[in-house]
């Protein structure tokens, strides 16, 4: 298992390089001279050239790319921001916890609501509970996050004035952003839980458990849910990815100092090192999330663990034979 995790972590290196290559290419082909934003459009020619030199923009693209990648892997150096000349790594690291908190909070809240709802819908298939849950799930999955955020503001801050409209002071100010990101996830996860659960409760082992005299609720949550979790877990991985994106919207609307807002600003000012840095950190986060998802898989479903160990064994045997 340890070897597997190690291997997966090593696999992140090419992933990160690949992501960087794409972002780097985009930054090169996107129109607009980053120097404009470093010194302003009215700067003198000398100042422009000096800035170009300082940021290494006068070097060929491939040299810049190699240098950048080398810096990322050897010194964890994500470059220097064009707009405020601060190290990007530092800038991101003090924003990242906020984004992570926001994302995880919204996913956890979403799961806490979606799992019971999905299970209930599956158990009471075609009942009014099921119909209402699935209709609202579809609704919440479909609504644009941005619009929804403004609606939340309008209702809870402007009209009812019960929740703060911006800032992060205390738990109350987290409610709206978490709700904004989480609500689509609730819809999505509830649907996945329901369909997975529907499949599971038709399985023989559910009947076996009932035939043992187990309570229906225990059968559903102990025997059913754990089996139904697999697709849900796979979805949680993706959901975290999507929520990282949702955090961008939430952060800019609710004035939350996270990586999303940082990247949005950076994109607007063509501050490529900041954009790249943000994407690297998000890509690594996403890779780690996916690794965690795979590890959770093997905990939830012992079949995968055995399969994995068996594969490792045959490989070792092959190695020994060779």
């Amino acid at each position, binding site marked *: 298992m340890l070897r597997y995790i190690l291997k997966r972590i090593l696999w992140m290196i090419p992933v990160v390089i690949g992501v960087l290559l794409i972002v780097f290419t985009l930054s090169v082909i*996107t*129109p*607009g001279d980053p120097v*404009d*934003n*470093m*010194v*302003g*459009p*009215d*700067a*003198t020619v*000398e*100042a*422009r050239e*000096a*800035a170009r030199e300082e940021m290494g923009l006068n070097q060929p693209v491939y040299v810049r790319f190699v240098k950048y990648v080398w810096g990322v892997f050897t010194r964890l150096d994500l470059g220097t921001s064009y*707009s*405020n*000349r*601060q190290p990007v790594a530092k*800038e991101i690291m*003090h*924003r990242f916890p906020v984004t992570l908190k926001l994302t995880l909070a919204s996913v956890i809240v979403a799961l806490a609501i979606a799992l019971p709802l999905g299970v209930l819908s599956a158990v009471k298939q075609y009942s009014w509970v099921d119909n209402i849950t699935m209709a609202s799930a579809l609704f919440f999955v479909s609504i644009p996050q941005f619009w929804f*955020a*403004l609606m939340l*503001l*309008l209702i809870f*801050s*402007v009209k009812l*004035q019960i929740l*703060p*409209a*911006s*800032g*992060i002071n205390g738990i109350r100010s987290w409610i709206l952003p978490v709700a904004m990101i989480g609500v689509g996830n609730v819809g999505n996860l509830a649907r996945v839980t329901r369909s997975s659960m529907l499949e599971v409760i038709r399985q023989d082992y559910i009947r076996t458990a009932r035939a043992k005299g187990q309570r229906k609720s225990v059968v559903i949550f102990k025997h059913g849910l754990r089996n139904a979790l697999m697709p849900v877990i796979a979805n949680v991985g993706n959901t975290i990815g999507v929520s990282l994106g949702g955090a961008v919207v939430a*952060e*800019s*609307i*609710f*004035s*939350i*100092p*996270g990586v999303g*807002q*940082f990247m*949005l*600003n950076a994109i607007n*000012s*063509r501050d490529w090192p900041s954009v790249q840095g943000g994407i690297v950190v998000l890509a690594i986060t996403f890779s780690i999330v996916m690794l965690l998802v795979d590890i959770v898989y093997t905990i939830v479903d012992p079949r995968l663990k055995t399969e994995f160990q068996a594969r490792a064994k045959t490989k070792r045997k092959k190695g020994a034979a060779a």
Partner: protein
Amino acid sequence: MKKLAALFLTAVMAVGIVSGSALVHAETPYTPSDETLVVAHKGNPTGLFHLNISAVSVNTPISETLYDRLVSYDGETNSVGPMLATEWEYIDDTHVRFKLRDDVVSHAGDPFKASDVIYSIQTAVDSGALGNYFGMFNLEECQVEDDYTVVLATKNVEPYFLYTLSNVPLGMVVQASVEANGGIEAQALNPVAGTGPYKFVEWSDGSYIKLERNENYWGDTPYFKNVEIRIIGDASARIMNLESHDVNIALDPDTIQLAGLEGNPEFTIINYPTSNSTDLLMNCSKAPFNDEHVRRAVSLAMNYEANLMIAASGYGSLSDSFLPLASSAYVSAEDGGYQSYFHYDLEAAKAELAQSAYPDGFEFELLYAEAPAFNTYGEMIQNQLGELGIKVTLVPVASTVFYDYVTAGDFDAHIVNLANPDPAMILRDFDSRIDFKTMRGGCGWVDAPQELLDLMDEAKVTLDPDKSKEVYGKIQKIINEACPAAPLYSPNKVCAADSSIKGIILTEFSDIDFSKAYRAE
């Protein structure tokens, strides 16, 4: 005429008034409180020190309160008044002597002296940023005469020199404080060298900036003890934060959303006319806009009033000249004795088109950088020109790409915001000697009359207000009658605030000044 004259008058008056600082202080309408003012602002600043970073509009409202300038700008009278300098005199066309206050200390506690003025300008010039502002100084001839007297020199005659000095990019710093704080780089994150009414307390990146009243301020003590500038990227969200009373002032609202606040006694909309102008620039270097009649026809076919109401909810003003009403050089058609084409007159437009080479209309592409107001203008213009048989293809592009097109002169017509209070800078767009590339825009008016070019050169170096106005009057006659550009509207500077907050000053030169804001029930 009145405005430039006022500028000089103020300078003279200042000399007379200033004998003791107590006299300068008008009676304030409030007693300072312990309250906090919360301002919703559109973006995270790139830094808190204006002299070595690019000047972007997100930085301005913060720098405005942290740093004082040598002179202040009074929007009411469109004149320049004392600030750190109490009085000034022109030694000759390019040298001005400033007398400084002797009671000014930086936030770090170091006194502000004449040498700091030179240091501030030197820092700005060294940064290489903002050629418009910092490029005008003749540093070698700037000199300290004594601790509180400094002479500033410009390379050329600069009629707008004092206005420029009142502008935020020329806020002053105290050298000793900069150096004690670890150099100018450190200023961007921890500014202590300014002398403004508010001091920096804390910057939570992307979330808020907290300021605190400068208790040692040389001027009036601000009413609000603390100011929190909250960064809220979305314009709708800023208005909602105001409505929910999370903030007291919402900067840069979408004008369309202000309709919801109009008539609500809880909120006021502060609306200030500027010398900015959103223009339709026609590419006079090629067909069809090399034809004067075509340009006039297009100018006459647009319904300026309706467009302003629809695209900017009426938050702006219309002018009969390419210079907005608020421009100090504006001369009306009546005063200037010229024919204006910048009003809606479909019959006249048809008559002009009939005289052109395209009596049955033509097609052209209208380029603009994507923005809500521009999009609406584009669509309205498309409809209105359709009446003349002119088919307009809209080409909305990203702002960066936009400059690639105009720099290459690759456009038929474009919509652009000309924002410079100095009319000489606006004139550059009509100067055929400056190509698209250098100008990063313009209308390529290659067959502009020589007379115009001569007048432009004269305007640039004319200090005398009466004379200046006369020259600008002649210039407006030539340009307005030839119509290389049609002024769509002059956008106002707008913000929305709690009705109980009074004394918020929006100005063209310094964005927003909330150091004089106070609460009155």
